[in-house]
């Protein structure tokens, strides 16, 4: 009898200490601290977006009622849209709706904003995800080959080409790709998005040019960074010296040792880029008529569709904040020195 009680109490104690160890671990504390910083930041961002939309000139109630509506009709629409209430109250209503998943309706298409997002988000996510994959698939092999012989012919050619392409804005890149592949070669569609439901091949064909427009400048950026980091590791790191001394082949040192270390920095860069890339989709989606989040936001800004713009801009900013958070945490997972606060 007493022994059972004793064992259970020991078990709960063990469990408690395990739980305590997990919760009290430096990593958990770091994640908690990061989330504590990110939450007010996201709140501040949502307030700023709300304030900016308030400041855009024009009367949404009049837009909604139409140009030849009488003053009373406009007032009725204003009341119906809830615009007669003070701004603070409307912001809090929005925040409450955000938490409970009710984002209101678009004042242009009358559709619920949540269903608009469900329609548009997959397009943007597909573009961004493919752009990252393609850019890394180009950058990593190119950087490895270039770093094999720094100053060699391949290295110099890659450096010059990547420097040049880096200076090409994505909207110019987009139009150049259209000019070559859609107008001259007629091999890929210039505009329009084909849903995944209509076949994988047709879908991939429709996103090839926008993905390339996003991925090429990114690939140049990554290739230059990775090449520089690899060369530095190969020239100065002690572990490279050790590996060489024990007879590891140069290619294996580069690939198995230096690249492993450099991939760490590359990953950070990828994380930091997510925000910028998501912002970059705005203009690329517009050029290729992709029905994504960016186009939704642009149209919303033009037509003063407050409910739509509010959530779109918030999503863009939140993705950047959360990506930074994930990078910070991953750093800590990979590097114990940071986990324990020795920075």
């Amino acid at each position, binding site marked *: 009898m007493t022994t059972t009680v004793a064992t259970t109490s020991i078990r709960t104690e063990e469990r408690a200490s395990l739980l305590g160890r997990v919760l009290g671990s430096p990593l958990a504390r770091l994640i908690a601290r990061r989330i504590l910083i990110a939450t*007010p*930041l996201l709140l*501040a*961002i949502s307030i*700023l*977006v709300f304030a*900016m*939309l308030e*400041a*855009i*000139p024009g009367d949404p109630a009049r837009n909604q009622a139409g140009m030849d509506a009488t003053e009373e009709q406009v007032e009725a629409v204003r009341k119906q849209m809830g615009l007669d209430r003070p701004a603070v109250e409307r912001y809090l209503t929005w925040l409450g709706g955000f938490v409970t998943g009710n984002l209101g309706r678009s004042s242009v298409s009358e559709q619920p904003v949540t269903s608009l997002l469900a329609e548009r988000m997959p397009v943007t996510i597909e573009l961004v995800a493919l752009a990252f994959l393609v850019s890394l698939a180009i950058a990593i092999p190119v950087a490895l080959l270039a770093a094999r012989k720094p100053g060699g012919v391949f290295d110099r050619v890659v450096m010059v080409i990547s*420097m*040049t392409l*880096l*200076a*090409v*804005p994505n*909207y*110019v890149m987009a*139009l*150049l790709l*259209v*000019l070559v592949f859609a*107008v001259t070669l007629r091999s890929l569609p210039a505009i329009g998005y084909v849903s995944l439901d209509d076949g994988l091949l047709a879908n991939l064909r429709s996103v090839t040019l926008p993905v390339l427009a996003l991925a090429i400048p990114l690939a140049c950026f990554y290739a230059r960074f990775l090449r520089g980091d690899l060369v530095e590791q190969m020239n100065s790191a002690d572990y490279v010296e050790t590996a060489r001394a024990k007879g590891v082949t140069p290619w294996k040192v580069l690939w198995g040792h230096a690249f492993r270390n450099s991939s760490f920095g590359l990953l950070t860069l990828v994380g930091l880029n997510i*925000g*910028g890339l*998501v*912002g*970059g989709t*705005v*203009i690329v989606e*517009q*050029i290729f008529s992709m029905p994504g989040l960016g186009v939704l*936001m*642009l149209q919303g*800004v*033009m037509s003063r569709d407050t409910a739509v*713009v509010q959530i779109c*801009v918030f999503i*863009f*900013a939140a993705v*950047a*904040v959360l990506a930074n958070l994930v990078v910070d945490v991953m750093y800590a997972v990979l590097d114990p020195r940071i986990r324990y606060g020795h920075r």
Partner: protein
Amino acid sequence: MAIADASIGAALVPSDAVSRNERWARIRRRLVVWVPAGSVTFLLLLCFVGPFVLPLPSPIGGSVLDSGLPPGTAGHPLGTDVNGNDVLSRLIYGGRASLTIAIATNVIGLVVGGGIGAVSGFLGGKADTVIMRALDVLIAFPSLVLTIAIAQILGPSVPNTILALSAFSVPAVARIARSATLKIANMPFIQAAELSGSTTWRTLTRHVVPNITPQMLNFALLGMGIVIVTEGALSFLGMGIPAPAPSWGNMIFEGQQSLSATPLLVLWPSLALLVTVLSFNMLGENVRDEMSGR
């Protein structure tokens, strides 16, 4: 260490080979700085002095009768666009607008952002936390999304475009200025200045600011390309420099309408954008490398 290595290496190789290699390396090092520097100077002269000395036709108000003239037509070396305006003239005036906006945005970024960053980093404590958290909010926005929102509030015009673009140049410069200030804040010469009775303001303006200025200027140089590209994006979307006034962004947008028929109308402003951004990027990178003593 590096110098010692080099001299040991030099002693082992025949001397004329070294001198030839070294001479070539020195020439190359100079070229990578002077070529982009020359290119930037040329662009600045072309865009700011060109309109006064070159016999350029007006960039706006052309006649539809002259529309779509091919390159090489008398009086129109690069031809005319759909509205009958001279393309070369529009390129130069558009470049003037782009460069004016980029320079103004960077000056605002340097003065306001640099000031905020230096004060924040130097004072530290609560003020620093509050200022930096406020800037974090602005930095969290993707630059194009933020500028679109602000440009839409202010309406399309040159000064408004500058203000919208400053919304990301100011926080970015402030961050760099702050970290540069933190690096020198505890150095002996700052402590010496404070011990000798220098006021906070005097230490800040006479000791901190001169020390972080080179780094700031270099950052601004690297920022020129980013600002020019973003301004082009805004004008491309119709939220920057309002048509009919030319800018590279709205020229690319207009040319896009007839991309298959007259691709040159897109290619000229794209090329202008490319050369300008490339020159500034190369100059900025090489100045940075020189400064970090590579």
